[in-house]
């Protein structure tokens, strides 16, 4: 009996309904299914667990979370303001579907329009879609987008792009027979080598793509020149950015980017073991771009009687439900609630809250770098400006370091060679991250614990 979830489960209601249908048992509702296919018994999934048992089970399965997380690699432990959780737990938002009936769904539509508008401001762009799944698939879509717009088939990316995202990009581009070329990194600075990039970008290049910060935490200070190289060959200039960094440095739009992608999960959502996430996708207001945009777009409009300002989905003819195989993407369900969270977060922090937050992360990164480089077995191999993430090289085994940290409830760096040996370059690297959740005391604690291993 699932009567707690279904009001019609009771014998009384069931009998009434079956009687109306003129049948004796629900089995007859499956009479159209060939009998050789019908299961006689339900699949074995164990007995149902009641509320109290389930909560007890969950508690018994899950260990306490670590006290401090300093792990990097594309995800960091950010603070989630309570108002974001509270708004996102309003059932009007979280239980609703994609706003196909705009009159009944103005709340979500307006929130998504505000997300598009706020994100556009933050990134220095003009048009942001109302969402893709995550940073990785946003990059995959960016690659496909650039190929559609330019009708070219080569994509040049920095070697220092996050390798998980590189994998997604390759998966998305593979069926197009596109070529993905990696521009090497300068070993000292950790930034992409402009000379190599210049030699790789040519008339067949659809897109040039860099990340800020890159996999090693380094900010591409010459982004403007890189975008210039792309434009000189008629390729799209594309950047991936941590939206928090955009509150501190000139945003990609101002530096000349045509297309920006990123991860919005950092804006007020928990890590949740990697997802749900929020793929950011932004372009300049150029009708060639807008018509090729993947994913949902919300536009501001008015009612037919001109009484009210209102919002609805626009340019739906790009999308799968109308354009089918000619659609700009297959995306349907995307990441609305995460976009709503980001909108609440950005509105709540406002310009000053975001700026201070980004500055704090920059200070933390700088202090972590300084403190770690004072320990003789650890070094920071790249000189470039780092934000939030920091690549640390060690002459000790990271396993030893990290297990000591873990014994004190602290999560250490992500060991690059474990998953991506090609990104380690023989330097025994681990990626650390530091966020607003850390202060000097927490960073000092991390460094002291690392010193103990020596």
């Amino acid at each position: 009996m699932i009567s707690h979830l279904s009001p019609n489960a009771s014998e009384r209601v069931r009998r009434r309904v079956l009687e109306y249908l003129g049948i004796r048992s629900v089995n007859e509702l499956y009479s159209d299914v060939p009998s050789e296919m019908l299961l006689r018994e339900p699949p074995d999934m164990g007995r149902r667990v009641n509320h109290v048992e389930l909560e007890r089970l969950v508690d018994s399965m899950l260990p306490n979370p670590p006290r401090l997380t300093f792990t990097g690699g594309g995800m960091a432990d950010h603070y989630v303001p309570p108002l974001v959780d509270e708004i996102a737990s309003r059932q009007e938002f979280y239980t609703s579907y994609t706003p196909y009936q705009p009159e009944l769904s103005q709340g979500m539509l307006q929130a998504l329009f505000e997300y598009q508008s706020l994100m556009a401001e933050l990134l220095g762009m003009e048009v942001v879609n109302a969402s893709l799944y995550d940073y990785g698939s946003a990059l995959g879509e960016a690659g496909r987008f650039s190929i559609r717009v330019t009708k070219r088939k080569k994509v040049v990316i920095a070697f220092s792009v996050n390798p998980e995202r590189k994998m997604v990009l390759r998966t998305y581009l593979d069926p197009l027979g596109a070529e993905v070329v990696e521009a090497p990194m300068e070993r000292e600075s950790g930034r992409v080598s402009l000379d190599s990039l210049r030699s790789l970008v040519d008339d067949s290049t659809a897109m040039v793509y860099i990340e800020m910060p890159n996999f090693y935490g380094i900010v591409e200070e010459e982004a403007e020149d890189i975008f210039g190289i792309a434009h000189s060959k008629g390729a799209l200039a594309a950047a991936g950015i941590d939206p928090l960094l955009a509150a501190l440095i000139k945003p990609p739009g101002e530096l000349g980017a045509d297309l920006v992608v990123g991860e919005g999960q950092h804006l007020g959502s928990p890590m949740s073991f990697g997802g749900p996430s929020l793929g950011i996708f932004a372009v300049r207001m150029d009708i060639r771009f807008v018509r090729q945009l993947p994913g949902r777009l919300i536009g501001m409009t008015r009612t037919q009687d001109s009484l009210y300002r209102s919002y609805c989905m626009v340019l739906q003819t790009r999308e799968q439900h109308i354009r089918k195989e000619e659609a700009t993407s297959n995306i349907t369900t995307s990441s609305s609630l995460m976009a709503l969270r980001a909108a609440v977060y950005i509105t709540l922090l406002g310009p000053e809250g975001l700026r201070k937050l980004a500055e704090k992360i920059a200070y933390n990164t700088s202090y972590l770098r300084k403190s770690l480089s004072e320990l003789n077995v650890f070094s920071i191999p790249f000189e470039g400006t780092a934000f939030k993430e920091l690549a640390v090289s060690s002459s000790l085994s990271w396993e030893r370091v990290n297990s000591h940290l873990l014994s004190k409830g602290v999560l250490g760096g992500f060991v690059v060679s474990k998953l991506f040996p090609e990104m380690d370059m023989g330097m025994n690297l681990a990626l650390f991250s530091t966020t607003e959740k850390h202060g000097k005391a927490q960073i000092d604690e991390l460094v002291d614990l690392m010193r103990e291993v020596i």
Partner: protein
Amino acid sequence: MGFSQARWFSGDGVLEPTPFEAGRLGEGGLIIAEPEEELVEIVGGIEEIIPRKLIRKELNIPGMSEPEVARHFNRLAQMNYGVDNGSYWLGSCTMKYTPKLVMRVAEHPSIRNLHPYAPEELTQGVLRMLYELQEMLSAITGLPSYTLQPAAGAQGELTGALMIRKRIADLGERRDEMIIPETAHGSNFASAAMAGFRIVRVPPNSDGTVDMDALKSAISERTAGMMITNPNTLGIFEDRILEIAELLHANGSYLYYDGANLNAIMGWVRLSDMGVDVAHLNIHKTFSAPHGGGGPGAGAVGAKEELRDYLPVPVVVKEGNRYRLSYDVPRSIGKVRTFYGNVGVLIKAWAYLKMLGSEGVRETASLAVMNANYVRKKLIDSGFEVPYGRDRPCKHEFVISLAKLRKETGVRALDFAKALIDRGLHPPTMYFPQVVQECLMIEPTESDSLEELDRYVDVMREIKELAYESPDELMKAPKRSAITRVDESFANKVLWLSWKVYEKQKSQGELDR
């Protein structure tokens, strides 16, 4: 029951003003953290960290205080409609109630605060949940191997299509066509095309199922596979599915199953018994994870043995009593997103299936089917036209056509839907599947009570009568939602895609309001 949605607006018809109007541009906001003085002393000014030429000068986003932000978004929430407000018979979307317990489980601090690269000691619990979810989905579908990585149904389709593509390449074959029924969901066509396939369409028969003759002539040595939805989007069970599978398999082609909606058959029919090779399941439909106003969802993909080695990496494996993420998938298609999937959503499905257990899964499906059949019969008895499948039970949903009503009164499915809004009901899916004129696709789910089913049908009957009496009234609906009917063509003309774009147009005098 009467209905009136909240409507927050200012005198000149501006709905709840945006923060760009209500806030102070470039000023204010909540400081949740700031650089510590001690660190500033050690490190120096911000120019010591960030090259001066790169530092941002302006950040023109609005600033508001916390109470203002709270009110703003709560007002917006009041101008939205969720499953917990009322009936939401949105066909193909399975708008069932989400038990609050599954929400709480997914919000557990040990899951929320877990970094995706955390060491195995800390991930055992969450990996066990994911592994158990895969096992339960295997039990339901009969497909032995799963990935939980795809972020939604459509991404699951792309994953499955890419797996088929790679398998075919490994076999040294050249098959580049995907057969898709005309009734299929739009994402099927788009996903197959993204995976590099050419689409071959097959029409439905007069009974709404796949036309076997058309299918036979569509199958060729170029056929990589077919994507099928069963029950199909008309709510009809494709009873010749085994024959379809045999035709494809005999031809060396694969059967992809769109399992976005499993709510009619879970616990009753397994996909493996239908000859399915690979399938996706929408966690945010059948398995109670809420839709979030358009995501995040999750799209599990299950495969039979032959395709197991093509799943995205990593996969969750169990060794003795330990769980691990394994990257050892020899022919993997790679990754379709970063990390492992929308874990926070997947956990809800795990909790939901634990709450149901074996019996509950089967019972849920039969109640959803029972409710759909009840509503269908009541609507037929009230003179509504169900063009396909009247001779047999429907599954979780069915499709009605208002073509006759339109012809006789001018009232379209769209007008009908807007009239439902005024009576506090979320309208069914409109104009899909496209094979039915002026259609509404109705899926009541197991969550509505008998009284609610009856009321919805009464309202539909009343609107139909009204269509004959005063059609003009209906065309003015809705009046009781936050706004009256939205001007979509104006929206597509002006393309105010962000506040910035709007302001720019305004400053150039391009606005007519």
